[in-house]
């Protein structure tokens, strides 16, 4: 439904931030995530950061999958 990409915040201004996607940079709006801070990862859609990526949850997902893999292998 919409392209969204994880991008790292490398500079924060009042209403905008510069993000880096593996070396490619872009200025995006942060009106939807005013709490964002340097080094956060955000999902960018059409020039706006929509969400801050929570690494804990991401790791938990992977953990869950790994367990499934191991369960199966076991």
């Amino acid at each position, binding site marked *: *439904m919409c392209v969204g990409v994880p991008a790292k915040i490398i500079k924060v201004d009042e209403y905008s931030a510069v993000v880096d996607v593996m070396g490619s940079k872009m200025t995006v709006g942060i009106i939807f995530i005013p709490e964002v801070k340097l080094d956060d990862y955000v999902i960018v859609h059409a020039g*706006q950061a929509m969400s801050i990526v929570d690494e804990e949850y*991401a790791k938990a*997902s992977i953990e869950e999958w790994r367990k499934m*893999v191991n369960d199966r292998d076991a």
Partner: protein
Amino acid sequence: MIETLKQFSSSTISQALLKQIEQKAGEYKEKFGREPALMEVCGSHTMAVAKTGVKKLLAGKVKLISGPGCPVCVTDQKSIDAMIQLAESDERIICTFGDMVRVPGTNRALIDAKTDGRDVRVVYSPCDAVEIAKENPDKQVVFLGIGFETTIPVLAVALKKADDERVTNFSMWVTTKLVEPILRKLLNEGDVQVDGLLLPGHVSIVLGKYHYQYLVDEYRVPGVICGFEPAELLSGIYKSIELLLNENPEIINSHQHVVRDEGNRQAQLMIDQYFQVCDEAWRGIGVIENSGLDIRDQFIHLNAKSRFDIKAGEPKPTRCRCGEIIRGLIPPEECNLFAKACTPVNPIGPCMVSSEGSCAASYQYLREE
């Protein structure tokens, strides 16, 4: 972080999940006598399951039905004609997402208007269109605002910018769509067997998990919010089948690292501030009450529909079956024109040209001939 996210496309994990799904799907078939039918509501999911091969790999085990989640594809032909007509003036600059430029109108597409000398520009962000308006004060700049709930708040940001900075030559032609009304419509009509829903990863950023509770409460259909990488898709499908086997419908947020259960409050507020519900016409379905958003009356000065006198006639009926495809009634291959008269170079319907269209996905990713 990147290392973590990369694992979402890990081949090992994905292969393992595939096997798990096959097993669960087997259990399902045993129990219910047929394969489980899941609908990807979201066009990006349609694209992702095709592009990664998930759809092919699960063929015969899990039925993946493409839903109405491609915003270009669901746009009514008359709306598309109106947007193209809007471009037919030397006084205007039409700004659009890349997705719209090749969509066929009754007579031609935006790109043909551009070839003929109209000023049609592809922008990445709607705010870029406001900047273009500031740089071209002697032209009317119109942004074509299409999209579902992920994109709508972004459109609101552009409206806010134009309004705050008093950019009087900017306006927006809005035909946005909402997820809930179309899902209700599909589930109410029941023409297509949908056992569970893969819920959109990005729309859900805005809407959150709780929003979907009506699916469970009113339709007893389970849903899993998931992302777009192979492992995410597969685990979403796995969880969906698990829920179906348990016969205990529930909404699962399997995209928690991105989607908050309550959604994004700021984005929701922005939507409320700049938009109001309206009836919207959906391709092949007709008008659905309160199924879209248009610019609030308070900001009517930014509404291209009131600024320009555009009257698109009744579109010429074609044999394109996009309408049925977006409702999940038929797969693209069942359209007689598919890959014959209708190809990405010569698209007959929007589903063949939109980057999220089911026909485009089938043509590009599933077809080997």
